[in-house]
């Protein structure tokens, strides 16, 4: 799709959407949002970019294959699930740092789980879309 408006817009929308997706990720524990939605918004940012500039260019700005995000995300999530077992608690129990960190707020194992989900969702969605669109 060659459209000057879309191309210009998507150049500015990409960072804004990524920032918004990160915002959704961080507020997800108590408010609507979270890793899955954040990941979807982030991947939509890249999808929009690939609509405007073509899939090859999107892959170029990503540098790494989106597939490599999946093991990283899964690893972070899985570790945050298992981590409470070291403290003798059942898996998936929320462990929290005592002091809140400015801007982000309370940090706990749930946040790491969400970050893992976020990465996995981006990886999966982009892998599938690139597979479908590159075959043509």
């Amino acid at each position, binding site marked *: 799709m060659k459209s000057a408006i879309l191309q210009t817009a998507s150049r500015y929308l990409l960072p804004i959407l990524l920032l918004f997706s990160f915002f959704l990720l961080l507020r997800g524990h108590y408010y609507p949002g979270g890793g899955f939605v954040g990941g979807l918004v982030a991947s939509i940012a890249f999808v929009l970019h690939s609509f405007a500039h073509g899939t090859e260019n999107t892959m170029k700005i990503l540098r790494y294959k989106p597939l490599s995000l999946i093991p990283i995300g899964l690893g972070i999530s899985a570790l945050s699930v298992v981590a409470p077992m070291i403290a003798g608690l059942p*898996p998936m129990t929320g462990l929290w740092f005592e002091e809140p960190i400015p801007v982000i707020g309370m940090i706990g194992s749930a946040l790491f789980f969400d970050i893992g989900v976020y990465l996995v969702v981006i990886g999966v969605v982009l892998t599938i879309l690139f597979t479908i669109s590159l075959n043509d």
Partner: protein
Amino acid sequence: MIDNHILAPVFVHLFAAIVQLIFWRKTITQRFISVGGSLIGLLVAMRLFSKVHQEGILTMNASDWDAPFGIVFVADLLSVTLVVLTSIAAFAVSIFSSVGLSRQRMLYGYFPIFHFLIMGLHGAFLTGDIFNLYVYFEVIIISSFVLMTLGGRKAQLEGAVKYMAMNILASTFFLTGIGILYGITGTLNMADLSFKIKDVQNQTLVGITSCFFIIGFGIKSAVFPLYYWLPSSYHTPPSAVAATFGGLLTKVGIYAMLRVFSLIFIPDDFICTLLMVLAVLTILTGAFGALIKTNIRRLFSYLIVCHIGFMMGGIAMFSKIALMGAVFYLIHDIMVKTNMFLIAGVIRQLRGTMDMEKLGGLYKEYPKISLLIALVLFSLVGIPPLSGFWPKIFLFQEAFTQHQYFFVGVLIFGSFITLFVIAKMWSKVFWKDVPENVEIEDKFASMELYRKIMMVLPVGILAAATLYIGLNAESIVKISEQIATQLIDTRPYVEAVLGN
């Protein structure tokens, strides 16, 4: 008893899969991780089994939420027995697939997906929450779709379409059932459901809901009117994949049925009759299908269907001895059916085909391997003292006690057809000479020694397990008896989950 480590078998396979994803495209590393991970998984599973065997039912409340509110994982004897059997099968298959699979398929991520599949199986056996069971079912089917299409031959993709459509449909039925169940009881915990369901005013609705579960699990375990996807897809993927599917996937359906019908819906006369009719028709159609097939794997696919009927019959009679028979048969079936497809893979390597008409002369050329295979075939048929024989005694006994003479007849018929088909296969593949004008492509003879060993070893491991089940039947009977007692009298299970 609360034990926070009962999910260890799940985590072992999860981490094995993640590490393998990191070593994407490094197939040699992946092979080592796969075999090592499966071995660790087996050891962990055995430790869990011995712990449950000694200390009774173990539970774990995920993220420390108390039982009916959070997701609970329960390791009772049925679950851990199946976890151990799955681990043994997974160990054998991962050894086999490290030499029996083309590099092309490994590059597309066979090993990580295989471990996700095993992880899903372990999770499905261990969970005590019906929606969580659904989630693990989905993990299993998504992984199995990928395994099924890996390689992308035409026949494979065709099989995958049928497999995909039917299995998604099954999940939809299962999910609908769960939705209605939640609507009428307000809980998803299986132990909690077991007594809340009795207080429901509208018992007709409960009956209809149980039919949703019968259809959902029936599609997954390939029961009579819903089994057509199985014979039209299981002969297409590589043998290592077919072994995992044939040995384990249909049995998850049977496990779920055992669990749901013992805990939540205690079968009344209508459900028992329905299950019995389905069981009889499953045995008959499976047996007739097996009679006419000449391709080994198609034949085995129909035998899976046929033998699912035996277990369904055990569930349908729903008494202690019948369930003992069903559980024992389940134990025997997982080991043997996995092995059958591995054997089909070995035969393919020896001859380059799996069509009985084009095969022959294997006994003359490879007497030792043939004898090993014969042992497995005899166990499948159920020649005493091998493993297939013992569970049938219990099924016969209970069928006579309950005057289900028709089922007795069908059981005998099914066993007889199995014997006939296997005898036919034995004579055509092993005894008969190689038919003329058939070219043999023997990949096996030219292999390095370690590859030969790796290919036959898993068949040997599973054969040893089968032999152990057959010759040490007394202890297996004891375990199945305990499992059947737990299934009939669910109070210990409910108490372990909910306290008093």
